[in-house]
């Protein structure tokens, strides 16, 4: 459904910048052949790759590293790849929603379901994002700590990169800078290669899902955590808002899907590479349950040398910085969408004060908290997980209802087969999230399964 006809058309700077981007897309689309298709992909890719590589954030990479160190090569290689397939199903819906409605996720929830759910979504997202941002800066601090960089300088470097991506006040430039930073997530591939993995074992694991880990409480919690971390609320809000800000239309949905699949492929390769990189620690029976980035790098140094360990630590830094950029941006988008303030990375500073203020202040405040001495990190991570559990079911339910809303989606509504798939994914993610939340809140419930 289109909004009521406006009496007067006022063109803004945001419109003009977006129009310039669309002109390039139209020019590329006017030609046929491989090169024009490749150019279209170059122009239209971005939100999907950023959201997937952004989800390979500091805590996620630490989780993959811990998985490799605890279980080695086996069940978790194909399992991690499968979780990214699940992410594709969910994130593709946000591409269609954004392209068909030209509205962000929070804005659609506000308009279609009323202010209560609109404000709830924004506040819930904002709190979860803020806590997650803290964990991202912890990853940056720990990664640069490997090189002896003091905490304050590490945090400053991260903030400078975050703010540098914003200075052009152009979505396109911001996206390209962030994509360039996100590409560094693939640094885990050479690190994995340095460990000389047995490719026969890797191939065998990917095909047969063997060897299976022993089934106990710890394994179940890692499985639940991996499923729960597959799709997080900020991913839904970010990709839809970025699709809108980029100016994508229904003609671009095919490339939006390719962008999402490409992002998932890159992110799953980086995740698997991280598991492979730390698998030698499993062979050496090293306990790495509570390792931070620097400790993993130090533990790997005797195996892959100083250079390889440095790459590993830098990869953790990148994971934290890119996630900090995308997560803080998703908060700013949601704030603008719900409060009906201007919200675009194409906004000049004068017109987008509230948007840039939310973005920069969220990041700065989270960064500042990380510098507090004797910060209870374990408690912060616990609260992040619980808040994610609180936030995820509503976010998924609203996504499902919106993508089936014929009044706003028209012919781009979910077909029956997609609904069956999406309903299954929503059910599994919600159940896994709730179970994971229960495991944190009441760990004794899972004690019957054995384990530590």
């Amino acid at each position: 459904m289109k909004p009521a006809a406006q009496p007067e058309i006022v063109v803004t700077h945001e419109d003009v910048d977006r129009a310039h981007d669309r002109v390039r897309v139209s020019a590329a689309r006017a030609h046929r052949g491989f090169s024009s298709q490749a150019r279209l992909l170059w122009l239209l890719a971005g939100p999907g790759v950023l959201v997937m590589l952004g989800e390979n954030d500091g805590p996620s990479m630490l989780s993959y590293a811990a998985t490799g160190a605890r279980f080695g090569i086996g069940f978790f290689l194909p399992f991690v790849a499968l979780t990214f397939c699940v992410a594709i199903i969910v994130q593709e819906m946000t591409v269609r929603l954004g392209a068909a409605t030209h509205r962000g996720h929070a804005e659609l929830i506000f308009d279609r379901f009323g202010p209560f759910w609109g404000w709830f979504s924004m506040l819930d997202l904002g709190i979860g994002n803020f806590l997650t941002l803290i964990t991202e800066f912890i990853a940056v601090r720990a990664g640069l700590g490997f090189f002896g960089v003091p905490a304050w300088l590490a945090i400053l470097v991260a903030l400078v990169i975050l703010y540098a991506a914003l200075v052009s006040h152009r979505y396109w430039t911001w996206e390209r800078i962030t994509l360039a930073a996100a590409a560094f997530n693939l640094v885990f591939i050479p690190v994995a290669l340095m460990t000389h993995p047995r490719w026969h074992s890797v191939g065998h694991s990917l095909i047969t899902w063997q060897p299976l880990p022993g089934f106990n409480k710890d394994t179940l919690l890692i499985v639940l955590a991996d499923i729960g971390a597959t799709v997080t609320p900020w991913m839904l809000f970010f990709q839809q808002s970025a699709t809108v800000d980029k100016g994508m239309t229904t003609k671009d949905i095919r490339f939006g899907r390719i962008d999402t699949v490409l992002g998932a492929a890159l992110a799953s390769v980086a995740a698997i590479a991280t598991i492979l990189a730390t698998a030698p620690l499993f062979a050496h029976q090293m306990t790495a349950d509570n390792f931070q980035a620097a400790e993993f790098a130090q533990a790997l140094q005797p195996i892959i040398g100083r250079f390889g360990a440095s790459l590993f630590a830098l990869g953790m830094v990148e994971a934290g910085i890119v996630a900090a950029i995308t997560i803080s941006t998703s908060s700013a988008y949601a704030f603008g969408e719900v409060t009906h303030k201007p919200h675009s990375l194409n906004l000049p500073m004068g017109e987008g004060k509230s948007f840039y203020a939310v973005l920069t202040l969220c990041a700065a405040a989270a960064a500042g908290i990380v510098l507090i001495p004797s910060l209870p990190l374990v408690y912060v991570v616990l609260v992040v997980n619980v808040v994610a559990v609180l936030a995820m079911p509503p976010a998924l339910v609203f996504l499902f209802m919106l993508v089936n809303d014929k009044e706003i989606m028209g012919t781009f509504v979910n077909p029956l087969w997609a609904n069956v798939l999406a309903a299954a994914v929503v059910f599994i993610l919600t159940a896994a999230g709730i179970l994971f939340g229960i495991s944190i809140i009441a760990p004794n419930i899972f004690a019957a399964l054995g384990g530590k």
Partner: protein
Amino acid sequence: MTNKRSTPPISALDQNLALSSLEPDQLVGAKKHPIPRRHLKAPELLILWTLRIYLIFMTAVVAYQVWLAAR
């Protein structure tokens, strides 16, 4: 690229470019009009009430955990 700091007036050329390149509901002006509220059917209302109950329960659980940790 437009000079963002001084936000100069938009030229007629740029206005035409925006109007011809963007879909009508892509324009910032069009987005100031909210999309009408959805008329919810019984199953949808049931889902939203389930969500409300879930949220009240989870909020209480989180608050209890924070209180426990603070002690």
